[in-house]
């Protein structure tokens, strides 16, 4: 390559194209893997093109730009976060299925190369954690939390845009790596020295490094934003101990993000210094020490686990209460338990590497600390059961997920305690048992929580219910698919099968692998069911509209406004007197009232900061991956100028006049009055337009 080309393209060459090796080497393995990789790249390129063509054809560029990309509205940003999460979820599930299929045929071989398999498990893990789970829960908190505390927006709407931009940039980088390969094979944890330049000189690790770094920065900013919002923007009377449980878990998660993300920033930052500037932090030679990385990574990694699981705990708390038609049992205890978990989560990181040769006392101490987390978690599970106890339980789609969660999660908890026992961990560490355990926590816990939340709050966000029949199918496919896929992995782990193996040589593994492969197919069906559900719901949106805003006889403030809510959320900020604020209003017959007078509302103005930072972030990361220094410097300068220029902007708000607020609010109230109130037996029918009958029927107080 000539100097000029390398100045422009860095180390990016033709061999980065996924079909390149196929052209030179015609062995069946190369061809098969080349075809798979090219197919994936093709899907990315075609997907992007299709999106562009579609928007152009619909003539919606201006709408997209002014109503979405530059919108500071927390609700729209939340939805965009969730869209990113769903796109990435689809990709990561397809990758998971591919890995399961490979291992089904993996006795003595299979059809994937080890390299390809390595990229698959690395992208699968990285995407699921950083570009599925994080954006998903960030999106849902973004959407719901301000509504629940009676706020009009987050504290820092523009920073929220920037968070979205950074996450989008990271996700885009991972997607680009399919077209301009390869990605890292170092696993989502990226342990050095394997990920050091000496052992992995290619662009793969750098893709991983910068994608994760972008996501980390995004999450740190998000955490600050959420915490400040919850502390400072609650409606009058919304004391901390009147906040809905979901908001409580959002607060704990935000605090964990603030303190838990910096260790990862340090870890990836130092690894980047090693790789780019010849530092020796984690190298094998010249005094580097990879154990520092492992400690830093898990000092992030364990709080991260609770960043992921606490919001679902909050979601399930809301769902159990709502669909049992009953106040949550032990509200205060649940809050305290959440806090306990959040604090304890910082004290257990070492259980991720009991086998690293530290003293038995240290291992035992961390093992016991880990088990302590089981106490508040167990209490939460009992609280949820007692919330259903003496209620009137409707088995809606979110509730099916919640039931699946509660039954499967305790099993995962049990295997967690097993892993926390150092003496047993020496056997099952790094094995498929571990994989089964954390999928047992993250699928029933996190993913069911997110899907449950989507079914629960979708009508609030869009104004129409998600179709239930396909919803049930998806939920059952998820539950069954999960059990079929991951229970065999427990057994395989007990038989000593290492994680991340492309192939194996023990015929005893095979039956379990086949079962897991079948399970993966069921999960694929679940994904298809979700897509069908979305499609059918959009098709039937008029029949299922819930403009009145309260399709589930909700308890918290977000159900007190129209669906979808107006940009400013509340025409006047509500005043809160108890927990379950909206339910209290309904009980007293004070729901859906017009305020005495309206005032002008000041809302944040549109801003291009998110888009700018997203693009420059992506450009910088891409430049760093391929050593295109001009791109790095250029994008860096643009970022700097943009940030400084933003400081000079003074017209950061726009005012919505009182009469406009009044008009739209009164229009909604009129609609609510016209809506026929229904009782809960009609909840899933087209009769449900978002207004429940008052008060709760047949209650013994």
């Amino acid at each position, binding site marked *: 390559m000539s100097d000029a080309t390398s100045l422009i393209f860095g180390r990016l060459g033709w061999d980065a194209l996924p079909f390149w090796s196929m052209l030179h080497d015609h062995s069946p393995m190369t061809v098969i893997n080349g075809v798979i990789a090219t197919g994936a790249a093709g899907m990315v390129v075609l997907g992007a093109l299709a999106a562009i063509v579609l928007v152009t054809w619909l003539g919606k560029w201006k709408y997209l730009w002014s109503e979405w990309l530059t919108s500071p509205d927390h609700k729209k940003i939340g939805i965009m976060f969730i869209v990113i999460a769903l796109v990435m979820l689809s990709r990561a599930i397809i990758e998971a299925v591919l890995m399961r299929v490979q291992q089904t045929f993996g006795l003595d071989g299979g059809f994937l190369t080890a390299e390809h398999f390595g990229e698959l498990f690395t992208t699968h893990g990285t995407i699921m954690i950083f570009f599925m789970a994080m954006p998903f829960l960030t999106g849902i908190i973004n959407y719901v939390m301000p509504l629940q505390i009676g706020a009009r927006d987050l504290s820092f709407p523009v920073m929220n845009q920037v968070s979205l931009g950074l996450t989008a940039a990271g996700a885009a980088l991972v997607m680009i790596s399919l077209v301009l390969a390869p990605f890292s094979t170092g696993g989502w944890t990226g342990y050095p020295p394997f990920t050091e330049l000496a052992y992995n000189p290619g662009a793969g690790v750098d893709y991983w490094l910068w994608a994760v770094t972008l996501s980390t920065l995004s999450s740190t900013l998000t955490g600050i934003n959420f915490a400040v919002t919850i502390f400072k923007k609650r409606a009058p009377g919304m004391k901390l101990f009147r906040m809905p449980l979901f908001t409580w878990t959002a607060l704990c998660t935000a605090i964990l993000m603030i303190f838990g993300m910096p260790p990862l920033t340090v870890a990836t930052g*130092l690894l980047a210094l090693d790789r780019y500037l010849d530092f020796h*932090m984690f190298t094998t030679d010249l005094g*580097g020490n990879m154990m*520092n990385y492992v400690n830093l990574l898990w000092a992030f990694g364990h709080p991260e686990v609770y960043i992921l699981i606490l919001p679902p705990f909050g979601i399930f708390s809301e769902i159990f209460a709502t669909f049992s038609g009953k106040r949550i049992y032990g509200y205060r205890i649940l809050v305290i338990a959440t806090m306990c978990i959040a604090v304890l989560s910082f004290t257990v990181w070492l259980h991720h590497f009991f086998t690293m040769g530290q003293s038995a006392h240290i291992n035992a101490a961390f093992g016991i600390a880990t088990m302590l987390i089981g106490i508040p978690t167990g209490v939460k599970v009992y609280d949820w059961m007692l919330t259903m106890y003496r209620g009137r339980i409707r088995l809606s789609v979110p509730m099916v997920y919640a039931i699946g969660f509660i039954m499967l999660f305790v099993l995962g908890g049990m295997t967690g305690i097993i892993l926390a026992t150092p003496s047993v961990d020496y056997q099952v560490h790094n094995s498929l048992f571990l994989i089964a355990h954390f999928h047992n926590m993250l699928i029933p816990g996190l993913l069911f929580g997110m899907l449950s939340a989507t079914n629960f709050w979708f009508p609030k966000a869009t104004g129409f219910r998600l179709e239930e029949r396909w919803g049930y199918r998806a939920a059952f496919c998820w539950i069954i698919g999960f059990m079929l896929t991951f229970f065999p992995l427990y057994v395989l782990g007990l038989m000593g099968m290492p994680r991340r193996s492309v192939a194996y040589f023990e015929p005893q593994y095979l039956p379990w692998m086949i079962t897991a492969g079948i399970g993966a197919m069921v999960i694929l069906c679940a994904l298809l069911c979700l897509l069908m559900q979305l499609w059918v719901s959009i098709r039937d949106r008029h029949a299922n509209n819930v403009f009145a805003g309260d399709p589930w006889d909700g308890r918290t403030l977000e159900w007190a406004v129209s669906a979808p809510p107006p940009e400013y959320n509340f025409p006047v900020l509500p005043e809160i007197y108890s927990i379950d604020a909206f339910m209290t209003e309904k009980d007293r017959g004070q729901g859906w009232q017009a305020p005495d007078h309206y005032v002008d509302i000041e809302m944040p103005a549109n801003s291009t900061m998110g888009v700018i930072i997203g693009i420059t972030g992506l450009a910088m990361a891409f430049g760093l991956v391929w050593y295109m220094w001009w791109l790095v410097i250029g994008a860096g300068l643009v970022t700097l100028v943009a940030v400084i220029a933003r400081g000079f902007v*003074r017209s950061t708000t726009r005012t919505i006049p009182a009469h406009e607020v009044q008009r739209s609010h009164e229009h909604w109230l009129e609609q609510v009055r016209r809506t026929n109130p229904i009782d809960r037996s009609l909840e899933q029918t087209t009769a449900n337009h978002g207004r429940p009958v008052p008060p709760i029927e047949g209650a013994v107080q």
Partner: protein
Amino acid sequence: MSSTDTHALEGNSRHPGLNLGAAHAQEEDTREEMVFGFWVFMMSDLILFGLLFATYVTMLGGTAGGPGPQALFELKSAFIQTMILLVSSFTFGMASLALKYREDRVRLVVWLLVTLALGLAFLFFELKDFHSMFDKGGVPSRSGYLSAFFSLVPLHGLHVTAACIWLVALLGQMAVHGLDAPVKTGILRLAILWHFLDIVWIGIFSLVYLGGLS
């Protein structure tokens, strides 16, 4: 639902460092949020430095036969940097007082400029230090210990650089918009950052320089 204003209910948490004038309750709430948010960010940043300090300590033994602190550090220069930074914190304090109690902008700008000059002087001495370390073979690629040093101390330097750029930007904003509320909040937040960096530097000076030379 009642139409009670937020500020009637919980309005007594005005930020003491601000002087935004009367009858700007809404404005003050926004500013209060920004300052609080910045504190939260500082906590996150503090974790970053804390972890780097911890990493540095664990890497003390990783000199791999290369030069150690005794061979590389000069107490005099580090002491000069410390004094410069401490004085700059003082001058920033004077600027903050001018912001709060004085109407004339000149005093504020002068103190800020003095602070900026001190910040730049600090950076100059720090770079000079690095240069002399490089001359003595103290480059980050030499050993794990030096890598840890160069991941900790220059990060502080980068923070100071960013703070200087921010200061210049704020002066620019003041020139364009006058001393309005966003500029005041900006100065307040920059002050937090500046004092924070001072504290971090005291940590670096005691742990890295004094600890290394003792």
